[in-house]
């Protein structure tokens, strides 16, 4: 199973390539707390488990699996147009965000290194060419058409060059796929 191009969004990509920016909003909206759970929570105990593989910047959908389970509530669906980071969204047929889950970028090309002792310092080291899998859980309510992943692009110069952890630009849509009906 692979990510499919949306017929409505001709620029959608299967893999992590430059596409359109996440929706922009006013500064006021963007500053509202993203941690606050919105009222847009899953309205049924049904979820879709999306498993992705990644190899460097290349991301592919591996599987979509329906499961009867509760999901955590959505992060606020408004704002984020100017935010950096990594998140997944469920979008309606009219491209309205129905559910958002902010994630610690699962496709990082560096790694957290832990101390020998619990009292030591955590640090990070570049770890290029990482590959692996990650999982995104989204509500399976029938209202969502697409799932998108958004991620900040990396810097191209300086010490932060190429490192997702240090990316300082607003996130853009990097992948769009159709939710299985």
């Amino acid at each position: 199973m692979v990510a499919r191009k949306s017929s409505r969004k001709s620029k959608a990509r299967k893999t992590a390539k430059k596409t359109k920016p996440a929706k922009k909003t006013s500064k006021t909206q963007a500053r509202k707390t993203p941690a606050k759970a919105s009222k847009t929570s899953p309205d049924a105990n049904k979820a879709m488990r999306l498993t992705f593989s990644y190899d460097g910047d290349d991301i592919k959908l591996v599987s979509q699996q329906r499961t009867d389970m509760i999901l955590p509530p959505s992060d606020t669906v408004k704002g984020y147009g100017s935010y950096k980071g990594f998140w997944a969204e469920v979008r309606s047929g009219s491209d309205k965000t129905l559910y958002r889950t902010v994630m610690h970028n699962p496709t990082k090309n560096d790694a957290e290194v832990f101390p020998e002792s619990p009292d030591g310092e955590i640090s990070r080291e570049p770890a290029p060419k990482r590959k692996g899998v990650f999982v995104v859980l989204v509500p399976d309510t029938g209202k969502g058409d697409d799932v998108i992943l958004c991620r900040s692009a990396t810097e191209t110069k300086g010490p932060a060059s190429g490192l997702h952890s240090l990316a300082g630009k607003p996130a853009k849509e990097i992948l769009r796929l159709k939710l299985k009906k």
Partner: protein
Amino acid sequence: MGTSDGQVLGVTKIVDAGPPEKRWNIVIVSEGYRSDEMAQFATDAKQFADTLLAAPPFDRLRAAINIFRVDVTSTESGAKDPKKCNGTGAKPRTYFDASFCANGIRRLLIGNNGRVTKVVGKLVPQWHMAFLAVNSPVSGGSGGPVATFSKSTAGVEIAIHELGHTAFGLADEYEYYGGCSSDKGHDKHSKTEPSQPNITTNKDRATTKWRDLIQATTPVPTTSNANCKNCDPQPSPVAVGTIGLFEGADYFHCGVYRPEFDCRMRNINRPFCAVCQQVIVKKLTPFLPV
């Protein structure tokens, strides 16, 4: 090598809060335990569960959380520990092929996460968070879809920090990258607001993310770094637990703020700060019995 080097024995619910369809489900999977060491894994998994459920805010969310133990045997004990990272050179045959020295980093311990998620998906289809418990005394771990930890003294603390990332989208709150003494180019965070709930570039008391938790008497910013070329050396000027805006987080010395002076997302072996706890509680409240 791989699945020919062991066997999936089965799953045991070690913390039962209710049906998995209605609760938040954690799964702990064994790696590098021989069949005659499975009793030890049961003990280790229980110790992990006890530690996690004693850590705030999980201590008040027990009714929302199931914990499962998945017993997987390996032909040999431990994890690979390559010599190229000054390890012992051990190459035990294990089911998930866990190895230190991933990407050439000594304490980066990773198993085959795709294999782990397949096993977990078959046995606990409603899983939310998976851990791979590696039977090695060497310190190491990693995050991602499967939080991996060893039996070192820091192991469980590493796992709970990674839980903060994977399950709740929390950011790192430390203000350096490789280390305060070695960092270059980490002086100033970009002005772009991070999506994570526990860091911000917004120092406006009225609009910042955790504004509801900042008392009127707390100065904002609560700390400012006088020299952005280095980590801020000053001790906290306010009482432990004070919520404010402390400069330095997200791998940068300046221009980004964390909610408390210290937190589990800044240093392991610390409790989660109040903002991180609030995020976790909001995310897990729907899993509490009605």
